[in-house]
């Protein structure tokens, strides 16, 4: 709990070529926060997208106000981990929300869950409760479940979904974890949960529905699988 003040949520939105998705994500977030009455800010970290994402972000800043939409762009594609570090420097909330520019999360459930158990981290899971997916074929579901099974056996992480893209963290917890985590890309998301458990932080889970990206391609090919396995084995050997 913030000393004295009400809770404030800082949403970090790293973007790369999200011109189509960004306005919709922001609209959904603003609507959710207004409905729940929470204090919020959205920090858009664009890595020099060639498709004009930053220009759309500037329009959104005009529409919603620069106290609510903070633009903190970077000149080129510098990676997710550093985007979060960069975003956190400008975040004034006591809770940080990290999400992909995807359009499928019931954001308010996270706040509710956090309050329920006073959790340090709330993570979305596709594998429990009425979480799930939409528009996935059998092969993709099989790969997902298989990869998750392997992860559970090797890492015993204490969370059912490690590659989900939506998390709520207490600010100090996220800062501590960012110091300790060394992986790159999305393996770094997995590492955060594993380290969080080692450090004794509490993790609550909320079911999320993962609807396929409305715009843009979903990234799952042979390369992704190989790099996932490499990342998993690295975590297995180093955490």
């Amino acid at each position: 709990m913030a000393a004295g003040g009400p809770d404030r949520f800082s949403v970090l939105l790293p973007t790369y070529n999200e011109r189509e998705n960004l306005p919709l994500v922001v609209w959904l977030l603003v609507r959710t926060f207004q409905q729940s009455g929470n204090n919020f800010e959205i920090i858009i970290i664009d890595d020099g997208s060639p498709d004009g994402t930053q220009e759309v972000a500037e329009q959104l800043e005009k529409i919603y106000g620069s106290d609510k939409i903070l633009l903190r762009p970077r000149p080129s594609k510098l990676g997710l981990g550093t985007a979060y570090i960069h975003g956190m420097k400008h975040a004034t909330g006591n809770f940080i929300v990290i999400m992909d520019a995807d359009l499928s999360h019931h954001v308010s459930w996270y706040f509710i869950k956090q309050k329920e158990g006073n959790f340090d981290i709330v993570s979305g899971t596709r594998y429990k409760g009425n979480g799930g997916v939409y528009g996935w074929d059998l092969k993709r579901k099989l790969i997902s479940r298989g990869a998750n099974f392997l992860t559970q056996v090797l890492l015993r992480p204490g969370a059912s979904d490690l590659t989900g893209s939506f998390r709520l963290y207490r600010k100090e917890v996220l800062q501590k974890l960012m110091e300790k985590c060394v992986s790159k890309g999305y393996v770094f998301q997995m590492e955060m949960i594993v380290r969080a458990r080692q450090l004794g932080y509490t993790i609550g889970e909320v079911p999320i529905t993962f609807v396929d990206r409305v715009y843009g391609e979903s990234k799952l090919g042979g390369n992704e699988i190989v790099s996932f396995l490499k990342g998993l084995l690295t975590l297995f050997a180093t955490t």
Partner: protein
Amino acid sequence: VAMTKLGQWLCGLALLGSAWAALALEPPGLRLPAPFRQALLPLPLYLLVAFGCYSLATVGYRLATFNDCEEAAAELQEHIRAARTDLRQRGLRF
């Protein structure tokens, strides 16, 4: 001291492995009745196969019960429509 998961596995395997070797491989001085030794010898293989079956069954079950969220997808489409209309009204040029 925090051991890595790999470290835990290696320790566990070393422990179980040496216990198995001690009991099943007939070293002098430590003799169990023959039936026990006969059962112990193929045990690691049996356990491996059992784990393989468990894995297949678990992943198969989880695959079969993977939720397809029709409602969430429909709701999302609704939201997208509402968002585009609202944002256009507010002056966003897509």
